[in-house]
């Protein structure tokens, strides 16, 4: 199979908004492609494989040797993207009759070639490909596919295609490497399950269900343990003789972005915890942590200004010993003694919140207003650590959201199933000078009926259009719910909402009676005054 097949897959993935459709495309790729093509393609999509054989400037030089500068200028102006302009404008030399290369040919040749030969190599391949293939090649060799396929999505596709549970695939995932031949043999049913041995692999996390009133009524206080639900990101720390890794909740390896955590992982264990930015013992708002996320590398200044730490929830492995079958109470005892013994830097324990009755716990939850706390976690005292979302073992009991009455300002069409609906809403509140300033954007929380109503209202009250965006009459008030509010220099209003969603449409309320910016700012002030550690 050639690079052209990979290009066709890329092309479809780039334009496909729906998760299910992406999964179908990936399943087809695994089913139809031979080894090692399917594995290399998989690694390229998830950016496990990142070539940096060529810089964009080198590709541009290649094309300029055979393109009229004026036509290049007009074309680049029109297309707007360098790689795409090159792919489209490239004129294969006459008489080139070679078949397009396979993905594996490209990878192998680039590894073997001396630097000076790489431009000629790339030019030769470009001559054998069509426009789609050329774009795929350029993106591949310059190291930036960016097609929106996470490793997690790829593993789900592998699971669906092979019929194996995704948890099993996740456990071996980080123990296999490009082009994943043993993994595919196992999934094909022609080989044994790959044994990760000492490799630092990810174990799928145990997840919680949201607690509803009916569930709460059925609980007996003495069977449950409570912890604060910290507003960071769930992580798994894996360290041992085989290496050290920091994994996100979905199993992405985020080690490179948090070198200070890696440095502190001088132990042999697997831990579950919350990654936070903590300054002088105080958990910073989520926005601070966000500065550190999605980075391939991190500067010393970043580490100084936004120091990362982990608040530990659970101990999964103590050296080789698998603690997951033990009840929560036993694991907790092991976690506490392990922590006292190992005393790792940048890691503290998530304290248990003592309570006598569920009523008392409910009051604690209501009282918690610190921005870094999302609510409470309830864990069954006798529950083992099981991956996935098993009902009845762990509950997340988020505190009641904050709300604000805001005015709808702009609406944008959604994607996929919602592509014909104006489903993304930008809303604002009034500043003292009478100007309406946007404070956030929401695209959930409404029912199908409410969505249809909003869509109609927007179409009938449009005052301006900017491409896919409509500006609307300032006449509709939306009650917006959110978990927290933080200061933000990136927004004109100076505030940023956490998890905003539409709680209600306030058809009864005139726009001029919507909330003022000062009201929202006061919510920040009260959260700060509350202090960091309630309970």
């Amino acid at each position, binding site marked *: 199979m050639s690079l052209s097949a990979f290009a066709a897959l890329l092309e479809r993935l780039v334009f496909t908004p729906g998760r299910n459709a992406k999964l179908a495309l990936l399943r087809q790729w695994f089913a139809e492609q031979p080894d090692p093509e399917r594995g290399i393609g998989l690694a390229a999509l998830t950016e496990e494989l990142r070539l940096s054989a060529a810089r964009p400037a080198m590709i541009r030089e290649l094309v300029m040797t055979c393109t009229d500068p*004026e036509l290049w200028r007009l074309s680049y102006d*029109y297309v707007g993207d360098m790689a*795409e302009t090159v792919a489209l404008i490239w004129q294969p030399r006459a008489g080139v009759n070679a078949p397009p290369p396979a993905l594996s040919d490209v990878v192998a040749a680039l590894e073997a070639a001396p630097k000076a030969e790489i431009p000629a190599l790339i030019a030769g391949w470009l001559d054998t490909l*069509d426009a789609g293939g050329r774009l795929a090649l350029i993106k591949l060799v310059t190291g930036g596919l960016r097609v929106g396929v996470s490793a997690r999505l790829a593993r789900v596709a592998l699971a669906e295609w092979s019929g194996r549970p995704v948890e099993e695939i996740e456990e071996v995932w980080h123990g296999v490497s490009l082009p994943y031949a043993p993994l595919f043999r196992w999934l094909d049913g022609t080989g044994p399950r790959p044994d990760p041995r000492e490799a630092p692999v990810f174990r799928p996390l145990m997840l919680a269900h949201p607690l509803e009133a009916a569930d709460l009524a059925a609980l007996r206080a003495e069977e449950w343990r409570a912890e604060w639900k910290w507003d960071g990101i769930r992580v798994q720390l894996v360290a041992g003789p085989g290496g050290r890794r920091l994994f996100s909740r979905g199993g992405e390896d985020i080690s490179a972005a948090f070198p200070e955590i890696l440095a502190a992982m001088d132990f042999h264990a697997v831990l579950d915890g919350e990654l936070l930015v903590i300054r002088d013992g105080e958990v910073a708002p989520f926005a601070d942590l966000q500065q550190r996320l999605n980075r391939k590398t991190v500067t010393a200044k970043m580490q100084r200004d936004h120091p990362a730490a982990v608040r530990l929830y659970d101990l999964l492995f103590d050296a080789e010993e698998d603690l997951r079958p033990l009840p929560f109470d036993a694991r907790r005892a092991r976690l506490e003694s392990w922590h006292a013994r190992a005393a790792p830097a940048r890691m503290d324990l998530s304290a248990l919140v003592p309570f006598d009755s569920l009523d008392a716990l409910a009051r604690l939850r209501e009282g918690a207003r610190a921005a870094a706390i999302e609510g409470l976690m309830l864990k069954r005292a006798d529950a083992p650590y099981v991956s996935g979302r098993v009902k009845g073992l762990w509950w997340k009991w988020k505190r009641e959201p904050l709300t604000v009455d805001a005015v709808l300002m702009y609406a944008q*069409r959604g994607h996929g199933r919602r592509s014909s609906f104006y489903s993304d809403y930008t809303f604002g509140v009034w500043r003292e000078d009478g100007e309406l300033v946007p404070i956030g954007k929401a695209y959930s929380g409404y029912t199908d009926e409410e969505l249809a109503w909003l869509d109609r209202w927007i179409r009938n009250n449009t005052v301006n259009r900017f491409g896919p965006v409509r500006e609307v009459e300032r006449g509709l008030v939306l009650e917006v719910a959110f978990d927290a509010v933080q200061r933000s220099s990136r927004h004109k209003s100076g505030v940023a909402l956490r998890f905003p969603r539409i709680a209600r449409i306030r058809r009864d309320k005139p726009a001029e009676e919507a909330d003022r910016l000062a009201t929202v700012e006061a919510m920040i002030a009260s959260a700060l005054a509350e202090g960091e550690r309630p309970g």
Partner: protein
Amino acid sequence: MRPVTAPHPETWLKVTPAGLFCEPGGFFIDPTRAVDRAVISHGHSDHARPGHAHVLATAETLAIMSARMGEGRAGVSQQALRFGETLDVNGVRLWLRPAGHVLGSAQVCLEWRGARVVVSGDYKRRPDPTAAGFEPEPCDVFVTEATFALPVFRHPPPEAEIARLLRSVALFPERTHVVGCYSLGKCQRLAAMLRQAGWEAPIHLHGAHVALCRTYEALGIPLGPLRTATVAKKEDLKGAIVLAPPSAIADRWARRLAEPVVCNASGWMRVRQRAKQGGVELPLVISDHADWDELLATAEEVQAPEVWVTHGREDALIHALGQRGIRGRALHLVGRGEEDEGEAPGEAAA
């Protein structure tokens, strides 16, 4: 080829506010407002306007105009001219040659006092089962469009694009594939190409596409079984192909479809950013216009020392023609490119 004594065509074929006017013949070509005498290259609304007194065109174009505008609005009197027939209009020799753009589309060829001009209208060079293929006519001045006149526009083989569509239908059998396409030409070409590719199931049509498909069939172009999508049940549209105007594919109309895969068939789909703007999930690069290579090849083939560019991206085309020793001139005709692919989707779509 033009005798040195022949008057230069710019002295008798003039750009006026109503469009190109042949002075000695006393007629306009594709005028943008109602005139006494009009020669019409093809039925798209930016070339064929209602309300002219006398209209000359191919029989197919006249039928299409009548179907779209209603009897009487498509010329008080209509005169059909067959390919290969020649007329004398006040000393101007006039004949039509196929342009390959849509059914009935013609190049308007004029000769006066030894100088020959070919007004090509919109044209393409790829085979199309619904339109007679383009025939080059040597001339002194070739009047061309420039819709896709940038070297980034090289249309892939249309059969390969149809194959991509059918492959997607096979991959997503529970979903409706709705293909945005213009109601005159592209819609019928897609239907005919799907038939060529072996798609035998009924093709569903948006209401706006029904009338012209019937006109095509009446003119002898078979399109196979057609259904109206508007009255179909969602269940029946699973795995179906629906042809609809580009403005409808991602809007309210499309909600009646089963989890639609939104496709769009247009030369603009070549550029990703353009395709993404319209919310398209499967862009199909199928165009009824000449691409960059074809524009240049055609200009050379007709051997005209001078090429006039009516509308589109004339800068690039005139620059490239200059490098080939051909004098280019931008006519800046107004009101062109308002139907079919003349405008990029982001700008045209509501």
